[in-house]
């Protein structure tokens, strides 16, 4: 079971988890990242910190970390803070390869804490990066790879932060809703969907590669707390444009009534 929703303490995160971590000061990032990576080392994972030179320096002052780096259990990567370009495919391949190598080297998994503010600070990278987050999330749901993606609040517009939060299953700040991958390759949607999330929802759906089984697109809505009729129509269209029936897994009885009233013939509810 992946950790979902608002998480105050990184120590709650385990294999397969994927958290959006916002911070104010570099020291805040460092404290959270060190705790997150310590958890990985304790579980026999290979861990990696990607951050500024100062982040790395601070990390390596811990003797256990320095030893882990020396014997290959920990990797320190300096992220170029002036970096402008971002390539989704390359980044995805790096994560996959690093996870596979970690497993081949006998580690139980691979865990990364990364300050990726510099990448998304470039507005033209945002859409591609969000898409990358969604693709890597699918990989994480299935493989023993976990990540804490950190973003410095002051450096990013709130709309970008909201968009990033919406494509991570977990995070340290609240998000109205979250779309993420399930281990079975399907997509889950959690939280509240209403007029305030309509743009975010459309943006997030654009990056979803839905699992379609026998003409049905299943969305795991078991953690969906609320959906208004407009958002339901958005989900229905999302399935309809793919020529599929939308199946919402939920125990909320009001959803069946809404579907019936709106005469959405290609949407149905499936209890757990």
């Amino acid at each position: 079971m992946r950790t979902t929703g608002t998480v105050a303490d990184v120590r709650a995160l385990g294999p397969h988890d994927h958290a959006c971590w916002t911070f104010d000061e570099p020291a805040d990032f460092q404290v959270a990242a060190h705790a997150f990576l310590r958890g990985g080392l304790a579980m026999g994972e290979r861990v990696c910190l990607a951050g500024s030179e100062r982040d790395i320096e601070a990390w390596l002052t811990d003797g256990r970390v320095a030893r882990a780096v020396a014997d290959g259990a920990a990797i320190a990567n300096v992220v170029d803070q002036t970096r402008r370009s971002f390539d989704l495919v390359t980044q995805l391949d790096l994560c996959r390869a690093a996870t596979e190598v970690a497993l081949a080297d006998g580690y139980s998994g691979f865990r990364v804490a990364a300050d990726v503010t510099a990448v998304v600070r470039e507005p033209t990278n945002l859409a591609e990066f969000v898409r990358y987050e969604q693709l890597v999330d699918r990989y994480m749901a299935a493989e023993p790879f976990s990540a804490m993606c950190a973003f410095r609040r002051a450096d990013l517009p709130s709309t970008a932060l909201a968009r990033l939060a919406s494509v991570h299953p977990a995070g340290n700040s609240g998000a109205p809703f979250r779309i993420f991958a399930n281990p079975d390759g399907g997509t889950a949607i959690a939280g509240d969907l209403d007029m305030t999330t309509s743009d975010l929802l459309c943006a997030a759906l654009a990056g979803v590669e839905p699992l379609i089984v026998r003409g049905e697109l299943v969305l795991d809505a078991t953690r969906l707390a609320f959906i208004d009729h407009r958002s339901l129509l958005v989900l229905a269209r999302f399935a309809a444009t793919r020529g599929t029936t939308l199946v919402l897994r939920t125990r909320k009885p009001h959803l069946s009534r809404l579907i019936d009233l709106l005469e959405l013939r290609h949407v149905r509810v499936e209890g757990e």
Partner: protein
Amino acid sequence: MRSGIAAGHTGYFHEAVYYRCADELLAVAVPFLLGGVAAGEPTMVALGEEHAGLVREATGGNPGITYLAGGEMYARPASAIRAYRALLAGHVAAGAGQIRIIGELSPWMFGRTWDWWSRYESAINHAYDDFPLWSMCAYHAEQTPEHVLREVARTHPWVAEPGGHRPSPSYTEPAAFLMESRPPADDPIQRGRPVVELTDPLPASARQAVVAADPGTLPAGAVDNLVVAVSEIVTNAIAYGQAPVRLRLWAGADRIVVTVSDQGPGPKDPYAGLLPRSDGEPGGLGLWLTHQLCDHVTLDRRDTGFAIRLTAGGSTAD
């Protein structure tokens, strides 16, 4: 081909029947129904149990007459319109040239919730006009409250009498009737202080207010439905109304009442709430869903703004 008085009429022929005793009702109902059967038209009775029994007896249990069960269909005006439109469309698809129905509202509908049933009686002139329907709505001339009879006369273009049919002089086109300012009577619970007052709430805080006010004594699903309705109405107020939007909530042991007001003129569509969409105006679907999900919805159009009152639970009678 349509038989009877509605021959040559296109669309809905909507009549009121005023009776003082059962015999007067039967004097109109029986020839109406038997005429429909003789013409081979789908002929239906949607009367209460007592009157339906008398009609069955007076028509000798004629197998050409179908008796509709009221029940859930008449729980809410918007549900009745939806169910009747589906029923009528089915008969037309099956080749019916005319459909005859005689029905009545239960006396409890003349109480606190009469305002939405009067809107129903007006709106169906439009909502059923897609069909070759001839219907009669029976009202007791003496036992029905005066203010109800006045609105019946304004919402039924025709009156059926034992001797024949006459137009109703005070009939008002639905598009005009429904846009009138008719402030609904306050629910007695509104005389107390609201337990919640919010100005310009987001839908999420409006939903939270409803959940927090749940007395735990309402029928299953009533609060969930109200949460959906309040969210839709606050969304509409933000999107199409004029700020400030005010939400007030009262909670009693048997019901929750929520009012949402804004400074705008309210929906431009006269049928908003009773029909899912009639002119493609945005927001119409949310208001219609609200009419399907709440136990009572009032619309209050005034020069100073527009207000909606939503009720979950509660007795509909008093």
